[in-house]
């Protein structure tokens, strides 16, 4: 099922009643969630991503705008009539009920034509449990399960009545790092197997990038960019998106363009054909540095870190706006850790130019848009 959000806006009265201004949690949001896709809503806390999820589920009603499930307008429908499955951040499993009773719970509420016999219910619960691979734990209480298992039960409970859309609110934030990796693959697998349109909310860009078909980057209630994860990473719309995506984060420098050439400090690091002169902000992805004794970009070396298969070079530069500069390089070209300076040449596709305003569109040299990739 396809979900369309049209000019969706949610305003709250300010908690401090003396301040008459309203808080705008979601501002004029318009986008479409394609049927059967896994979409990640991504942004720093307070960006309105959870509110958006709650608006889709119906737990909150929008101040303005419409929500369409396929062609049906569900804006005015209460959550129980929308046919959504929601997985809460802390799972919200009923602690006094067993896993089976938890999964059965939504089925037991069905009325009228949808009403099931006990045998049908048990069968559906078993199917859902098998799907998330917790069928061996059906008689346990949630407190007897690990975080990852509880998460699976919550997903099974959300899926058991075949919702039209599955919503996950920060599904992995309560899990430890190893389990997180495992569970996100699990979510991807379950989504693929069921083909249910899925929206999940996260502040962890790596999580969103790794399993989403599409990501929606939000900031302060406004969509910054929508697209396939790799596209958004490679061609961020503005400096905020560029900074938000990627670990380690992008290195940001104050730079300038003179005679169609990009200068960082006094060094002419790259040609910038077709761009007008002036000061700009240059973002260089950590993987955009190539150690090169003849390179045009000189940094003072702080240290070389080897972590597993990654070698990262930590360096300083006077023009850096993001503190220490971090470059990830292949281990063969590791610079001498004793040397004072290190020289790089830059991969043009990994150098992104922005206006100095974080929210302003990225500077794209005319005709270069495709070459960026």
């Amino acid at each position: 099922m396809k979900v369309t959000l049209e000019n969706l806006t949610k305003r709250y009265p300010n908690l401090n009643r003396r301040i008459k201004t309203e808080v705008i949690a979601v501002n004029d949001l318009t986008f479409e969630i394609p049927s059967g896709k896994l979409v990640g809503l991504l942004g720093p806390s307070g960006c309105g991503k959870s509110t958006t999820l709650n608006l889709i589920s119906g737990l909150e009603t929008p101040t303005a705008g419409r929500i369409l499930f396929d062609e049906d307008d569900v804006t005015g429908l209460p959550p129980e009539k929308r046919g959504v499955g929601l997985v809460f951040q802390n799972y919200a499993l009923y602690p006094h009920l067993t896993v089976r009773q938890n999964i059965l719970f939504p089925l037991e509420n069905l009325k009228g034509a949808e009403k099931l016999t006990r045998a049908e219910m048990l069968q559906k619960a078993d199917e859902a449990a098998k799907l998330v691979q917790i069928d061996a734990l059906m008689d346990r209480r949630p407190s007897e399960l690990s975080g990852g298992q509880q998460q699976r039960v919550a997903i099974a409970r959300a899926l058991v009545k075949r919702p039209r859309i599955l919503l996950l609110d920060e599904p992995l934030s309560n899990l430890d790092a190893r389990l997180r990796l495992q569970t996100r693959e699990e979510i991807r697998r379950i989504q693929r197997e069921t083909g249910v349109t899925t929206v999940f909310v996260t502040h962890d860009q790596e999580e969103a990038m790794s399993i989403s078909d599409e990501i929606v980057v939000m900031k302060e209630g406004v969509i910054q960019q929508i697209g396939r994860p790799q596209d958004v990473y490679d061609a961020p719309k503005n400096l905020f998106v560029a900074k938000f995506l990627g670990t380690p984060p992008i290195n940001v420098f104050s730079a300038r363009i003179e005679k169609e050439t990009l200068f960082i400090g006094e060094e002419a690091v790259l040609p910038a054909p077709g761009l007008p002169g002036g000061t700009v902000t240059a973002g260089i992805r950590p993987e955009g540095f190539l150690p090169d004794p003849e390179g045009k970009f000189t940094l003072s070396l702080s240290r070389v870190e080897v972590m597993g298969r990654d070698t990262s070079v930590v360096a300083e530069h006077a023009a850096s706006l993001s503190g220490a500069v971090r470059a990830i390089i292949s281990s063969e070209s590791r610079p001498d850790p004793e040397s004072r300076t290190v020289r790089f040449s830059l991969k043009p596709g990994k150098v992104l130019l922005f206006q100095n305003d974080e929210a302003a569109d990225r500077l794209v040299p005319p005709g270069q848009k495709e070459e960026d990739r």
Partner: protein
Amino acid sequence: MKNSLKAWLYLLPALLFLGVFLIYPLVDVLIYSFEEGYNSTSGTYFGVGFYNYSYVLHDPFFLKALRNTVLLVLITVPLSTGLALLISLGLSSIKALRKFFQTVYFLPYVTNTLAVGLVFMILFKKTPYSDGLMNLLLRLFGMGPVDFIDGPYWAKMFVLCFYTVWVVMPFKILILTSALASVKDDYYKAARIDATPRFRVFTRITLPMISPMLFYLIITGFIGAFKAYSDAVALFGVNLNAAEMNTIVGYVYDMLYGDSGGYPSYAAAAALILFVIVLTVTTINLTVSRKHVFYD
């Protein structure tokens, strides 16, 4: 060994205190209850046996007190707990004036029992000069005046139960409102998404979640009601036997200090009978609760 000596030393003050003021009197009561014909002035007794128990259990005053107490327990505990739950549910579903109503409902808790009893007496009493406020209300519904304080047994029992419920409710409301507030909102949201009918939310989510607190209130409610005494005194004065409104604790008190006082052995036997009753009821409660109370 050295460590445990230190531990015992630390425990000593508390143990001494408990021993002198709790264990010793308890044992003493037990001994009294078996000493037949004990004379408190001379400190002598004739023999040892079950005569005191037999006397108490055949004493019509005790049987009356037992009946009153059991009635009071059976009526007020379910009623007050149920009403408190209803009021708490109401309180937690309103936003405006919640604090105000919470305060109002809590007021009886901080009011002196005897003062409240006096007020109740004035409300319900029928005198040659006035029928009392309650009877004025009754007349509105076309019912005749009833003397609730000196009148028929059922009327007096009604006032006693009414009063008891009124006095014990604030604490229960306090406990239950905080128990209800501690149920995480996510459970209700999850239930809403799953189209759970309201009543089912209450029985399958709310009740189990607050069951430990509810159970605590039922147990303490039973114990408290079995120990009722001051409430009856506040309403009907000190001569409870004459008013037919005595309670077991009242009987114990009378045996010790009342007009018929000076019988510590009978008092001890009655007190132990009460103890056995409370113990039995609490054990039953605990057994039943094991199936229905959910602890996180």
